[in-house]
């Protein structure tokens, strides 16, 4: 199964490319665009990124494997991220973490069999003053309690 960017995404990549004097610099933006389209970064996807930018595939791979927000396997439709770093921990993040684990029946970096949820214990998200917090895909939920977390998880269909 070969991967091709949509026309729309090719335009976005072109726009990203114009921000920088080199094509290589557009790799992070392009990886994001690819991940958004395909859900995760397979070998074919990485090859196509290299093709489109005219860079070496090794460069794509080295970036993909360095940054934690790029995924080489399919994550859940709802990727739940729980911050357990100090400021959150002081305000009960580990209770939230345990609650989420129990509720989803998942351990760190696991995906539910139906593909609906995945779980990640994350480092400080820059929400320390509104702790504890979780993020669902791109959205932050702050000032949480165990009850609120339950509500949020239940609202995700």
């Amino acid at each position: 199964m070969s991967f091709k960017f949509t026309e729309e995404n090719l335009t976005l990549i072109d726009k990203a490319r114009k921000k920088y004097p080199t094509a290589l610099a557009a790799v992070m933006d392009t990886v994001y665009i690819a991940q958004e389209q395909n859900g995760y970064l397979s070998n074919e996807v990485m090859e196509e990124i290299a093709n489109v930018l005219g860079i070496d595939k090794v460069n794509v791979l080295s970036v993909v494997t360095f940054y934690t927000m790029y995924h080489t396997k399919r994550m859940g439709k709802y990727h739940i991220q729980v911050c357990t770093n100090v400021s959150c921990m002081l305000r009960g993040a580990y209770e939230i973490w345990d609650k989420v684990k129990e509720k989803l029946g998942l351990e760190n970096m696991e995906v539910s069999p139906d593909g609906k949820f995945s779980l990640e214990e994350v480092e400080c998200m820059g929400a320390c003053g509104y702790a504890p917090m979780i993020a669902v895909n791109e959205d932050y939920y702050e000032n949480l309690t165990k009850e609120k977390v339950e509500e949020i998880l239940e609202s995700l269909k």
Partner: protein
Amino acid sequence: MVKISIMEKIVLPEILNLNQIEVYLANYGFESAKKAFSQTPDDIIDQVKKSGLRGRGGAAFSAGLKWSFMPKTTDKPKYLCINGDESEPGSFKDRQIFEDNPFQLIEGVIITSYAIGAKVAYLYIRGEYHKWIKLMQKAIDIAYERGYLGEKMKSTFGTEFYCDLYIHKGAGAYICGEESSLMNSIEGYRGYPRVKPPFPAQRGLWGCPTTINNVETITNVPQIISKGWEWFSKIGAPKHPGTLLYGISGHVNKPGVYEYPTGMLLTELIYNVAGGVPGNKKIKCVIPGGSSMPPLRGDRLEGVRMDAESLKEAGSAVGTAGIMVMDEDTNLLKVLIRIAHFYHHESCGQCTPCREGTGWMEKILHRILEGNGTSKDLDLLISVANNIEGNTICALGDAAAWPVKFMIERFRDEFETFVKKEVSLPVPNKVHSMRLTSLPLADLKK
């Protein structure tokens, strides 16, 4: 109770909807840039130098001095990077600027670019800040439309100078906040810090002269230009003037970001600004500038002020002014393990002391948590920390070493309660043959 003086806010003025362009313009928006263009770049650098503005990203280095390192005569393009990676645990201030005052940041970028002669600026924002990246991009788009960025600037300001501003979205790596790692990340490489020298002003992005400043640092610039360096230099602590966005988190009643002058009493910030400690508990420990900075004892906070000099004297550093408060019931061993885990996870792995040392420290701390530590382990931790400090390419090594070293030194009394006094004899362990262990022999025979 000490009364907090009412003062002007520089970075986050209390003006409703200031993040809307019309409101920003109605409040002298882009007037500073206009003023700046009527002066020479050297004049601008000089004023920022004299204002005493120091970096808000961690090291508190003079902004004007940093700009003056940019070569005047070069045929290479020059670049400005604005550091919004904001990944230091306990720091959550730059996002407030993206949200509430994006145009002042953009105006700061324009003035700084003009001063250092950069045609292109990259605003590096951590990838997790999707929402704030969108807000910032919207503000940048509006600035382009209105002719405050890009070629249209020429007619808006009636100058030859113009500059572009692009957002570079990070993807989850604390190390990319380190300036040379940030540049590698922008260039499309792994975020590995570079050996210094050469410094960014000599050889930065794509080998060209580059200046890197924190988001809050840059957001201060327009006000310095419009109200004058003398005005700015008189606010707060004389050697570290201006305001700080204090991010107060942990065990306080009203956590959040508060803008006040530098040099505020730490106790005033905790008790008056942030509403004190829940349940009126005592404070055991405060980390004053983000998790990399040496922790302070709760019983030694009296008189400690939040500026670079005072905090140095108190045995810590101002860092990002992210104040983490821990009450008397906090288990410092667990806090330290969490911090050690963070640095181990975020070490880029280039230098052996950092890559291995952060792992060892985490392991030893876990051994202590499991009840198998001895007093000697505490000394071992300090020794590992000392061997990391100063022996690495970038300051993440120091950032990993300091919390461990100073937490144990300053709270030795508490850490001694987690370990056995007597040194247990080394007996073979089922897994690692010669590891120090206190497993009962009976257990081994199973």
